[in-house]
């Protein structure tokens, strides 16, 4: 299973989080985890719109040993992040945001990974394990 949501306009952020919630409900996540996943997706989808203008989210089921989970990839071909550590700092923003998007979504998920190259774009991968 792989699904994709293109993010080009602001309402696409809503579509991304609705898709995330549906996927989380289908997999049987608790209400708290559904909310954590949907909130993290909302932050990262918005970041694409704010900082790169356009990009996409892909999500799929993942399994590791006896655990199942949901993985979301956020990809853009925007300007990239010059200093990832700085971008992860609570309260730091380069674009008039609140500076909570990256650090907040990291706290809500089990796995969080950023790859970014200046001038080429950014990929963020997040995973929430079930149970």
């Amino acid at each position, binding site marked *: 299973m792989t699904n994709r949501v293109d993010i080009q306009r*602001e*309402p696409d*952020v*809503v579509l991304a*989080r*609705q898709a995330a*919630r549906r996927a989380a409900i289908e997999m049987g996540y608790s*209400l*708290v985890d*559904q*909310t*954590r996943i*949907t*909130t993290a997706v*909302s*932050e990262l989808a*918005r970041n694409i719109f704010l900082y790169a203008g356009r990009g996409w989210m892909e999500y799929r089921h993942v399994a590791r040993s006896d655990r199942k989970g949901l993985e979301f990839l956020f990809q853009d071909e925007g300007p990239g992040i010059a200093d990832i550590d700085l971008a992860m700092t*609570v309260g730091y923003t380069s674009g008039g*945001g*609140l500076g*909570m*998007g990256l*650090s*907040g*979504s990291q*706290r*809500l998920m089990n796995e969080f990974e950023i790859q970014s190259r200046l001038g080429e774009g950014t990929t963020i991968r997040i995973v929430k394990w079930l149970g």
Partner: protein
Amino acid sequence: MEKTSIVKIQNVLIVTLQGDIDDHSAQELQQEILQSVIHHQVSGVVIEVSQLELVDSYMGRILSDTARMIRLMGAETLLAGLRPMVAITIVEMGLSIEGVKTALNLEDALEVLKGGRAAAPSLGRDG
């Protein structure tokens, strides 16, 4: 967005947020609330959020800013009915929704505004 309602009852504006609100709509709603405060000359605003399934950093900031703007205008705001899941997420993310007083539900919020009951102290450092 079309499900959001603003109703005036006595001296209080009751704003009910529902559904999935995008950023632009949230900003429009903020202006609409501020206009309504002046138009109806209310002394209190209750923002009822029990139907909100998500408060992320953007919505958190809109709520906090709106409450502070309303206070500047001379009225008081209470956030009522935040869902447990949403409260958990806000705290885990480290969001601080500053300057907003809260109540368990709409009924409690109205009691507080009437002066019959103390609100939960406002969240954050500038409360």
